[in-house]
């Protein structure tokens, strides 16, 4: 039945992009291996066949040039959807991203629009080593001028992609490899959900309470939402009722939803696959602490990636990644 149609995130992203491309000629896709190959993570599959190589453009390995070009095209009336294959590669093109894409609206006093989507894969867990497994949520969210989002499931993935393409400001669309639903990568089945075939948008800056509970609030994004949900199940069997908040977007950040949840539960654990220090976990905890510390019944905790490069070897990588057991342990150790 149509309304029970389930998609992977990869297919949801591709479908959203295709629908927008049909609707609006100014939308086009650009990046490495996003053409005939359909994207290393499947998120452009089918587009090359339908729209051809002019609108689904494979690029040289020249991220600075093609992301810069996307900015120029966006300013000139196009709506590029550009892929940075792995977020780990941001270092070769960050100037085009944070100093150009993210700032030209401001520098022009709002007279230039920069309607572009920069999509990029994040996350590890499959032994791809220290230059192919990072999340870097904090790195992007820290720098002003770009919206930063990451869906945890296919429904959001589609709606947020359409929202991103229609936005006149630049959007960094992060998608987690472990949620993509690619056969050759282990995948989280919870990400493959009912996804309507018509177009719809999911607005940015609205976190979602994906599980209600009264004893502790677990906050995550992307993969860590699923870790949190699994931890909530485990806590349930301990008689603890956990609420889980899926941030969905980091910029803009829905501080109210997180605050309201913590105001209710009194306890907060932030779960993050990005590096621990100077990042997402600190921001979320501070959001509560600076607003009203009295809502906290215990010291808030974080379950995050340690401040180390990502190790290749499986036991070491597993040790470093967040997981449901660590979340449960963090709860049990809360004072």
């Amino acid at each position: 039945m149509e309304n029970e149609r389930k998609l992977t995130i990869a297919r949801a992203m591709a479908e959203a992009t295709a629908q927008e491309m049909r609707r609006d000629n100014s939308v086009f896709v650009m990046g490495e291996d996003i053409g005939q190959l359909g994207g290393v993570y499947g998120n452009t599959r089918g587009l090359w066949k339908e729209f051809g190589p002019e609108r689904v453009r494979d690029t040289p390995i020249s991220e600075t040039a093609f992301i810069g070009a996307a900015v120029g095209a966006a300013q000139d009336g196009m709506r590029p959807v550009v892929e940075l294959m792995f977020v780990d590669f941001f270092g070769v093109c960050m100037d085009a991203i944070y100093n150009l894409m993210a700032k030209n609206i401001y520098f022009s006093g709002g007279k230039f629009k920069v309607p572009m989507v920069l999509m990029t894969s994040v996350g590890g867990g499959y032994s791809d080593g220290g230059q192919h497994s990072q999340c870097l949520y904090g790195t992007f969210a820290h720098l002003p001028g770009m919206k930063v989002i990451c869906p945890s499931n296919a429904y959001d993935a589609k709606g947020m992609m359409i929202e991103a393409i229609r936005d006149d400001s630049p959007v960094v669309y992060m998608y987690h490899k472990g949620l993509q639903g690619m056969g050759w990568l282990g995948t989280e089945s919870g990400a493959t959900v009912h996804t309507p075939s018509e177009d719809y948008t999911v607005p940015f800056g609205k976190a979602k309470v994906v599980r209600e509970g009264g004893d502790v609030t677990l906050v995550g994004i992307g993969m860590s939402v699923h870790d949190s949900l699994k931890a909530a199940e485990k806590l349930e069997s301990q008689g603890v009722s956990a609420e889980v908040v899926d941030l969905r977007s980091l910029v803009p950040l829905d501080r109210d939803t997180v605050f309201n949840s913590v105001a209710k539960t009194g306890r907060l654990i932030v779960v993050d696959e990005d590096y621990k220090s100077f990042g997402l976990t600190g921001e979320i905890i501070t959001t509560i602490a600076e607003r009203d510390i009295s809502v906290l019944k215990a010291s808030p905790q974080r379950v995050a990636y340690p401040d180390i490069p990502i190790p290749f070897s499986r036991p070491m990588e597993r040790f470093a990644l967040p997981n449901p057991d660590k979340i449960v342990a963090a709860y049990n150790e809360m004072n």
Partner: protein
Amino acid sequence: MVSRFFEEAMESIYMEGKTPVFNMAEGPIPGEMHLSNGQEPCAVGVIAHLTAGDIVTATHRPHHQAIAKGVDLDKMAAEIFGKKTGLSGGRGGHMHIFDADVNFACSGIIGQGMGPAVGAALSRKMRGEDGVAVAFLGEGAVNQGAFHESLNLASVWKLPVIFVVEDNAWGISVSKKQSTAVEHNAVRAQAYNMPGRFIADNDPIALFDVAGVAIEAARAGHGPTLIEVETYRLAGHFMGDAEDYRPEGEIDGLKAKDPILVMKKRLINDGLLTEDQHTALSDKAKARVDAAITFARESDFPAPEEALEKVFV
């Protein structure tokens, strides 16, 4: 025809060389100030071929390029003064001159404008619309990775974009010789399978001709061109630069070649301009600039809280 262009060019050249905006570093105009004195021919020789619909991406030294492109002079001056009436309400400043009406953008990061120029050219090509993009850069910027990536991309996709290197022989205190493996950056065009042209001696006429061919080729779908112009930085890198690194006598030598004076002499010698006409043009240019400065001075500063606006649209 050519003479009309000459005069248009003259007007801009003259204005730029004299623009008093360029001489203020403190007081009303704080921050870095990179003057383009001496480099005017690079801008006018190329931009004279462009319409408002064409695209220019400029550098940290953008005034001559902006004026030649027809950026609103009042608003530009006001922007440089940090006023609310400035092009972007004071958010950008001297290194961030943006004028959507004439498709002009710039940036303070070396080499950053090349990608956007390629993209704007792509945009026109995809929509089948007329339009050429010109990216200006210094000879120092040529050694930045963005140069290589952008020229390759422009060539592979055969886009209507022109790269103009203003070779003033210096990147701040580092000479071209110290920084660049080739004598002429124009030869680097070979690495991208595009024409590479060298213009000696800051000559706006020669540049005008070469740029005309390149821009016409771009409009006709024949792809990009790289143009290198030998030019002169008559001032310091930025205001306040002591320039101890310059060999003795270099500046005096260059000042004798001031393109505004050279051009004046040439036009007068060729009988295309009289002293009187020159004075009239000069006065007109000066008046225009004075008006812009007055506008800028008399404009209000933005309210401080406006800093929080226009991050997103």
